[in-house]
């Protein structure tokens, strides 16, 4: 393939083939498609830009060196990259350095005893698609996700803020993410129909 060829026209699985043939442009295209999500996920979990960069580099270099680790039969490349990123970020989070940084951040939150969730939602000015997805959630589930996602509270802290049992918050977060996935799939399907 010469350099003029359009890598952006190739599917993720096709790009992996090109990585196997040592085409750095293919890795560049994958980074363009998924680098933002990989970095964003690492940054959210680790709360530190330098560590998020480290994880992102590690994930993409691993893909370059061992493209055969991705099996398209088992799921999408995005899922594969995000799972790797999440697992690596959690490993780092459990390391002393990062935990300390996270605990410092948590300590800043503890004095708050009440939380104006509706105000927070309005302040966030959520981007259209996500706003639509979140708006379809039952209020209790939406609150739990927003506190955990946007404010970085642990589920126990969310439970304490909302004054509900911890088990209830665990379930609400899980259910909310499941519902959001369903809505996301439906929206994507509708988008594809409209495009078609």
């Amino acid at each position, binding site marked *: 393939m010469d350099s003029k*060829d359009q890598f952006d*026209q190739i599917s993720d*699985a*096709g790009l*992996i*083939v090109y990585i*196997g043939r*040592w085409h*750095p442009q293919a*890795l*560049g295209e994958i*980074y363009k498609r998924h*680098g*933002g*999500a*990989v*970095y*964003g*996920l690492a*940054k*959210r979990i680790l709360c530190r*830009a330098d560590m998020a960069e480290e994880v*992102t580099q590690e994930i*993409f*270099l691993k893909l370059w060196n061992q*493209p*055969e680790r991705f099996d*398209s039969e088992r*799921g*999408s490349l*995005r899922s594969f990259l*995000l*799972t790797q990123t*999440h*697992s690596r970020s*959690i490993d780092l*989070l*459990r390391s002393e350095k990062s*935990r300390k940084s996270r605990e410092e951040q948590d300590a800043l939150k503890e004095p708050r005893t009440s939380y104006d969730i509706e105000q927070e939602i309005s302040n966030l000015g*959520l*981007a259209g*698609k*996500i706003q639509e997805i979140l708006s379809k959630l039952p209020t209790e589930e939406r609150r739990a*996700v927003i506190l*955990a*996602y946007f404010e970085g509270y*642990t*589920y*126990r802290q969310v439970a304490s803020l909302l004054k509900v049992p911890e*088990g209830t*918050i*665990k*379930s609400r*977060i899980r*259910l*909310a*993410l*499941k519902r959001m*996935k369903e809505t*996301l799939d439906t929206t994507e399907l509708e988008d594809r129909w409209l495009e078609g």
Partner: protein
Amino acid sequence: MAGGIRHEDLQELLGAYSLGALEPMEYNAVQIHLQNCASCKKELEQHLEVLGVMDEVFQESSPDHLWDSISDQIEETPPILELSNLPTPRPKFATPLRIRLLAATSAIAIAAASIMGIELARLDHKINQLGRLTQTSSIEKLAHFALKQPGSKITTLTSANNTYLATCVILPTGQGYIIPKRMSPLPPSQTYQLWTLVKGKEVSLALLGNKPSTVSFRINKGKVLLITTEPSGGVTSTLNKPILSGKISI
């Protein structure tokens, strides 16, 4: 069960785990459980897909220099094969008796071939002709028979804009047939070539010719099928962009 915690309890934690919203001591239990639980792994992937969309929208975008530092670290050429590290093949020595036997056998063979050679060549030609005539129709019949077999894997190979189309059927034995549906004829100097990927490397399965018709192939490994255009006669490895591709269904 991980550390005495039930699967159902760990499953309940998956949402908070994907958000990074567990207490430090809980991560370990979930991570251990995930190593052996396919359903929880699947669920985690689904949560991460949702969060990936959110992260792209809401998290600080990746810094501009990040891609530069990744691309600086990648090697753009395959590592050089260290020939000096390869084991030296053991030399084979022919015994004098073996040499004498070989010489005698060769002499007989040369004499026989000179007498029979012409006849054999003619016969070969006839067999090839007949083979070609019957092969086309029988391969098509076999391919259509394979399409109806329970357990056959049927894959549609398409191009990015659906200009090209081919159907592939693979029997549980690994015998496969590719049935071109919409594939333009190529100049005689070119051929369509069918590939699969094994460990990220392309493996040639069949040549479809410049006017593609149904052909058979065998496949043992590989989960994708790709078709490229190559010089007539085919190639052993390719750098050409696939014009058709499809994933072999489970």
